[in-house]
C-alpha cells in the first residue's frame, strides 16, 4: 500500500502562501481563528484520515454493501467513523456558534475534506452528505423542522441525503413524477405535511445500518401545482418519522414523547414507508451504498414541506452548488492519492536503462528517470495541483461572499457562480485521465488489485456523472453562466486573469507564461463572442459543443491557477532553503508542463468551436 496520499506542504502552500487564508481572520465572523487553529483542523483531519479512514480503503472496496432483509448493510468500521465525525463536531464545523458550529472557513474545511477524500473516498461521503442536507434545512426549513432534525444530524446519529434522481428523471429533473399530496384534505388537517409517493434511485447513503435514521431532502411535485421545474417542492422525508402522539403542529408532538433510541432526542420513531428496493453494485466508490428507494408504496409516507411550495429546485441548487465544489474536490483528492502511489512506485521500480546509457552490465534504473514516466507524473501533478488550487480559490470566494456586503459580496458570488461548473467538471474529467496515467506508470502491476491505483481509476469515474454530468455543466456554463447579468461574471473573470497576467509580467522568468495566457484568454474571448452570435439563429447549434467550450474554459482557468502558483513559487524561491527549493522548483516545472502540454490543447478546441460544420446536430439517429 502506498504510504503518502496527499501533500501537506502543498496544502500549506495554497492556503497560506498563495491564497493567504489567514487574512480571513480580519473579518469579525472569523476573528476567533488564526493560522494555529487552521493548522490544528488540518492536523486532526490528517490523524483521522491516517488512523481511521485509510486502513479501510481496500477493505471497503472488496466488501461492498449488501441488501439483507430490506436493510443495506455497510462496512462495520463506518460506525466509529460516522460517530467520530459527529462527536468531534466535523458535520457542522462550518456553521455559526449559535448553531453549535465553530465558524471554520470553507477554505480550510474543504482542505480537511480533501484529506479525508484522498485517504478513502467512500468513507468520507457519509458525514458530508449529512452536512449538505442539514445546511438546506437550516437555510430554508421552519424552526420546528430544524429543531427536530438538525441536532441528530449534526451528532451523526441521523444520516442526511439528497433525493433527486428517479428512474426516468436524472439530468432532467423537471420530469420527476414523485408526488406530494396535502394532508389538509384529510379529516385530520396537518398543514405542511404531505403524503409522498414515488421512486428515487442512486441515492447516496440512502439507507444503511450505521445510523439510527436517514433523513432525505427529497424533491416531489405537489398535486395540482405548475408543470415542469416550477412545480417542484422540497420535503423532509425521514426513513423513520417521529410517532404522532397528538397535539403537535405538523403532526409532531415535541413535548410528550418517551426516550426510545436516540441519545439526544426523546422521541419514538416509527416506520415512514420508505422502502429500500435495492442497492446498486458499482464500478468503484463501492464502500458507500447507492440505494433505490420506494416511497409511499403503502400510502403511508409523510413528507414535511421545506420552505414554500414550488421552490424546491431553487433551494436544492444551494446544496447542489456546494456539492459540486465537493465533487471537484473528491476527484482532485482521488487523483492526488493515485499520483503519490504512482510516484512512490516510479521512485522504487528499476526497469530498463536510460536512453543515453544502455550498458547492460550496469543495474537497471528506476523508472522515474525515463522521460515518458516523468511526463505522466507531470501530467498528474499538473492536473491535481491545478485543480486543488482552483478549488481552494473557490472556497475563498465562498468565505468572502459570506463575510462581505453589497457590491463586494456580489463580486465574489458572481465569480464563484461562474467557476462552479469548471471546479466540478475539470477535476472530474481530468482525474479520470490522471488516474489512468497512474495505472500506466505501474504497468501490469497497476492493472492488478495488488496495488491501489486500479481502485483510484475506478473511483474517479463517477465524478463526471454525479452532481450534474459534464454535459449538463457545459450547458450551464455556455447557456446560462456567461450571459447572466449581461456577462458581468465573465467580465470579472477576465479581469481577474488580467490582474494575474500583470503581476506575472513583473518577473522576467514568468513573462512568457503571462503572454501565453494573455493570448489564449483573447482567443477564448473571441470564441465566446462567436458562439454567442450563433444563439439567436439556432439554439441547438449554439449549445451543441457546450461540453467542448467547458473543456476550453477549464484549461484557461487552470492555466490561470498555475500562473498564480508560479508567481508565488518564483517569489519564494529567492529565499528558499532545503526541501523548499525542490518544492518551488517543482511548482515552476509543473507550470511549464501545463503551458507546454495542456494549454496548447486550446488550439484544437478553438478550431472545432469556430467551425461551421454542425455534424453532431445534423447526424441522424438512423445513420448510426
Amino acid at each position: 500500500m502506498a504510504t503518502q496520499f496527499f501533500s501537506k506542504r502543498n496544502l500549506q502552500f495554497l492556503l497560506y502562501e498563495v491564497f493567504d487564508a489567514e487574512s480571513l481572520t480580519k473579518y469579525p465572523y472569523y476573528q476567533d481563528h488564526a493560522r494555529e487553529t487552521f493548522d490544528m483542523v488540518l492536523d486532526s483531519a490528517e490523524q483521522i484520515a491516517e488512523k481511521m479512514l485509510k486502513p479501510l480503503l481496500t477493505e471497503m472496496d472488496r466488501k461492498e454493501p449488501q441488501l439483507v432483509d430490506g436493510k443495506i448493510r455497510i462496512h462495520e468500521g463506518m460506525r466509529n467513523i460516522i460517530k467520530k465525525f459527529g462527536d468531534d463536531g466535523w458535520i457542522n464545523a462550518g456553521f455559526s456558534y449559535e448553531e453549535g458550529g465553530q465558524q471554520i472557513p470553507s477554505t480550510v474545511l474543504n482542505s480537511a475534506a480533501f484529506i479525508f477524500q484522498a485517504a478513502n473516498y467512500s468513507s468520507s461521503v457519509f458525514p458530508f452528505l449529512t452536512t449538505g442536507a442539514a445546511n438546506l434545512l437550516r437555510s430554508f426549513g421552519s424552526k420546528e423542522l430544524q429543531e427536530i432534525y438538525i441536532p441528530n444530524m449534526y451528532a451523526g446519529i441521523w444520516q442526511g441525503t439528497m433525493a433527486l434522481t428517479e428512474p426516468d428523471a436524472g439530468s432532467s429533473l423537471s420530469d420527476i413524477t414523485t408526488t406530494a399530496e396535502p394532508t389538509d384534505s384529510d379529516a385530520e388537517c396537518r398543514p405542511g405535511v404531505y403524503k409522498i409517493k414515488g421512486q428515487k434511485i442512486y441515492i447516496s447513503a440512502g439507507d444503511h445500518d450505521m445510523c439510527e435514521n436517514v433523513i432525505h431532502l427529497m424533491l416531489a411535485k405537489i398535486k395540482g401545482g405548475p408543470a415542469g421545474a416550477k412545480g417542484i417542492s422540497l420535503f423532509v422525508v425521514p426513513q423513520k418519522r417521529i410517532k404522532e402522539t397528538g397535539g403537535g403542529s405538523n403532526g409532531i408532538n415535541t413535548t410528550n414523547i418517551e426516550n426510545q433510541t436516540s441519545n439526544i432526542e426523546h422521541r419514538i420513531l416509527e416506520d415512514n414507508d420508505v422502502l429500500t428496493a435495492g442497492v446498486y453494485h458499482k464500478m468503484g466508490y463501492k464502500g458507500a451504498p447507492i440505494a433505490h428507494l420506494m416511497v409511499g408504496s403503502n400510502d403511508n409516507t409523510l413528507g414535511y414541506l421545506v420552505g414554500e411550495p414550488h421552490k424546491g429546485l431553487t433551494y436544492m441548487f444551494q446544496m447542489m452548488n456546494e456539492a459540486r465544489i465537493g465533487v471537484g474536490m473528491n476527484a482532485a483528492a482521488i487523483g492526488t492519492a493515485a499520483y503519490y502511489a504512482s510516484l512512490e512506485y516510479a521512485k522504487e521500480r528499476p526497469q530498463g536503462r536510460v536512453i543515453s546509457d544502455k550498458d547492460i552490465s550496469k543495474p537497471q534504473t528506476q523508472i522515474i528517470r525515463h522521460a515518458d514516466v516523468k511526463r505522466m507524473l507531470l501530467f498528474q501533478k499538473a492536473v491535481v495541483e491545478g485543480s486543488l488550487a482552483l478549488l481552494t480559490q473557490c472556497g475563498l470566494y465562498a468565505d468572502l461572499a459570506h463575510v462581505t456586503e453589497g457590491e463586494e459580496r456580489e463580486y465574489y458570488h458572481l465569480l464563484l457562480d461562474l467557476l462552479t461548473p469548471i471546479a466540478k467538471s475539470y477535476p472530474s474529467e481530468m482525474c479520470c485521465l490522471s488516474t489512468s496515467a497512474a495505472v500506466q506508470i505501474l504497468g501490469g502491476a497497476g492493472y492488478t488489485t495488488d496495488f491501489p491505483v486500479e481502485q483510484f481509476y475506478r473511483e474517479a469515474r463517477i465524478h463526471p456523472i454525479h452532481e450534474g454530468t459534464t454535459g449538463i455543466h457545459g450547458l450551464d456554463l455556455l447557456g446560462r453562466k456567461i450571459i447572466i447579468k449581461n456577462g458581468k461574471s465573465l467580465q470579472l473573470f477576465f479581469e481577474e486573469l488580467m490582474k494575474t497576467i500583470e503581476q506575472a509580467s513583473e518577473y522576467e522568468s514568468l513573462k512568457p507564461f503571462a503572454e501565453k495566457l494573455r493570448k489564449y484568454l483573447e482567443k477564448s474571448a473571441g470564441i465566446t463572442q462567436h458562439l454567442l452570435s450563433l444563439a439567436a439563429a439556432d439554439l441547438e447549434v449554439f449549445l451543441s459543443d457546450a461540453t467542448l467550450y467547458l473543456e476550453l474554459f477549464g484549461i484557461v482557468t487552470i492555466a490561470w491557477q498555475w500562473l498564480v502558483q508560479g508567481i508565488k513559487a518564483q517569489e519564494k524561491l529567492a529565499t528558499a532553503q532545503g526541501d523548499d527549493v525542490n518544492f518551488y522548483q517543482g511548482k515552476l516545472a509543473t507550470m511549464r508542463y501545463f503551458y507546454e502540454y495542456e494549454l496548447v490543447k486550446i488550439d484544437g478546441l478553438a478550431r472545432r468551436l469556430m467551425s461551421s460544420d454542425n455534424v453532431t446536430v445534423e447526424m441522424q439517429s438512423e445513420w448510426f
Partner: protein
Amino acid sequence: MKILVCITNVPDTTAKISFTDGDTKFNKTGVTYICGPYDDYALSRAVELRDQLGGTVTVMNVGEADSEQVIRKCLAIGADDAIRVNCEPTDSYFVAEQIAVVAAQEKYDLILMGRESIDYNGGIVHGLVAQMLGIPSLSPVMKLEIDGNTAKMTREIEGGKEDIEASLPLVLGCQEPIAEWKIPNMRGIMTARTKPLRVLEPVGEGLTVTSKYELPAPKGACKMVSADEAEKLIDLLKNEAKVL
C-alpha cells in the same frame, strides 16, 4: 486529581536532520515539530483520568517560544492549562530541575510524561524529577488506574510485565497502550486558543554545551549473494566485512 503532564517538542520522525553553525546547532528550517509520541500517550491517559475522577490536567514544556504550537495542540486535546519554561532544553538534568521547581510549588498528585523523548531518547527525566521531589518514579508504565490514593499500574520489564501498586504522588514514564492517542475535536481546537498558558523564566543554567553534532555514516551498499554461493559469502564476511 491534580495532574501535570510534561511534554517534549520534538522533530517529526520524517524530518531530515541537518546542522548549522559549524555542526553545533540543529537546523530547524523546514522541520515540523510534534509532541513526543510517548508524551501523547501520557496526556491522553491524563485527560481520561481527569474526566473520570475530576480535577485538572496541566501540560508543561521546557522550551522556547516556538514550542507553543505543540502546547496549544495539547490544550486542544483536553489539558486545562499550560506552563512553558522559557529556555532551551539543553540537558535532562536542567529540564528535570525546571519541572521539579514547578511541581514542588503546585503539589501535583500525578506527574506523567513519556518514557523518553524521541530526539535524544535519554529516558531519565522522570527519574530525575522524582529524585528531586523525593517521591517514587516508575517507567515504562503501560497501564494506569487510580483507586483512591493508590495507582495500580502495569509496566514493562525485561522479558515480561509487572503489575505494581504505589501511593500518590508519583512520577511516571508512560508508553503504549496506556491510552489511545486523542485527536483534537473542533470544540477543543477552538477553546485551545483561550486556555491559560503561563510562561515562567528558568531556574539555574544548563550544564552542557554541544560542541559538535555528527550524522551516522551512510549505510553501505547491499551485496546480494546467491544461496548456492556460500563460500563467496564466507569470503566476503572474512575479507571485506572482517566480521569472521
